[in-house]
């Protein structure tokens, strides 16, 4: 009887030790969802109701955990698409809008999107929400930035020059791809490759 009790006690002790040593709580979640990350009293609509130019920084309405998680996706590199004719027209010394912003996607999502569309320009336009036909017949170029952190990668506020009437708070295109903003990109900080 005493032996059985001792076994039971040992079993319970081992179970308790095993439970307390579990590292489930320490594991980074695979994904932090935007819908779970709004600070109290905020919503997408509330941000959109504020006029462009007056919108608050995302840290005002989004949990820092979400912001950190979102930006970590850009550690593997950032990228965007542009026409070669624009590069020829505006030059290659400094890229990005004059307000020191340039929207970018993650390298991983751009790679996946280009594979999915087989680089068909009309399909890429649809994926990125570009008006149909905008890039028709154009030579396209992919700009890649290996270290977006060095260019202050951040979640867009919606005040950026490139933020249009379809912009959504939280760092995603209406079609779902992750987006961020970086500073203007000087020569030497990017590579240019034909699509």
């Amino acid at each position: 009887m005493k032996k059985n009790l001792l076994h039971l006690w040992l079993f319970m002790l081992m179970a308790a030790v095993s439970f307390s040593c579990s590292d489930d709580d320490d594991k980074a979640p695979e994904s932090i969802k935007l819908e779970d990350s709004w600070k109290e009293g905020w919503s997408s609509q509330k941000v959109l109701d504020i006029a462009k130019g007056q919108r608050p920084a995302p840290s005002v309405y989004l949990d820092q955990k979400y912001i950190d998680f979102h930006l970590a996706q850009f550690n593997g590199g950032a990228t965007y698409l542009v026409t070669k004719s624009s590069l020829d027209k505006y030059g290659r010394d400094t890229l990005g809008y004059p307000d020191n912003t340039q929207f970018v996607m993650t390298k991983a999502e751009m790679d996946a999107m280009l594979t999915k569309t087989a680089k068909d320009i009309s399909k890429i336009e649809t994926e990125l929400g570009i008006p149909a036909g905008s890039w028709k017949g154009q030579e396209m170029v992919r700009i890649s930035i290996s270290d977006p952190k060095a260019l202050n990668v951040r979640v867009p506020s919606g005040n950026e020059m490139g933020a249009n009437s379809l912009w959504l708070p939280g760092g995603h295109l209406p079609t779902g791809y992750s987006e961020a903003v970086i500073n203007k990109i000087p020569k030497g900080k990017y590579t240019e490759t034909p699509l």
Partner: protein
Amino acid sequence: MKEIAKEAWNYTFSEQHPGDYILSVVCGGAGLYDFVIRLTSAQIAAYEREGIPYISRLAEEVRYDQTPFNAQKA
């Protein structure tokens, strides 16, 4: 075509023929594209009145929402 004003990665404003004005605006985010419009007579009048600051404002409007300018697409 005579280029009247250009700001890098913002817009290019040109006169194609006398009195025929074209505004090419850089639009978009992770995909940049040009949206090109031909100015209406009202817009030309505003340009003649206010100069380049009007063109700069017009470029912002075009960039924000192209729908109202679709009929002017050049």
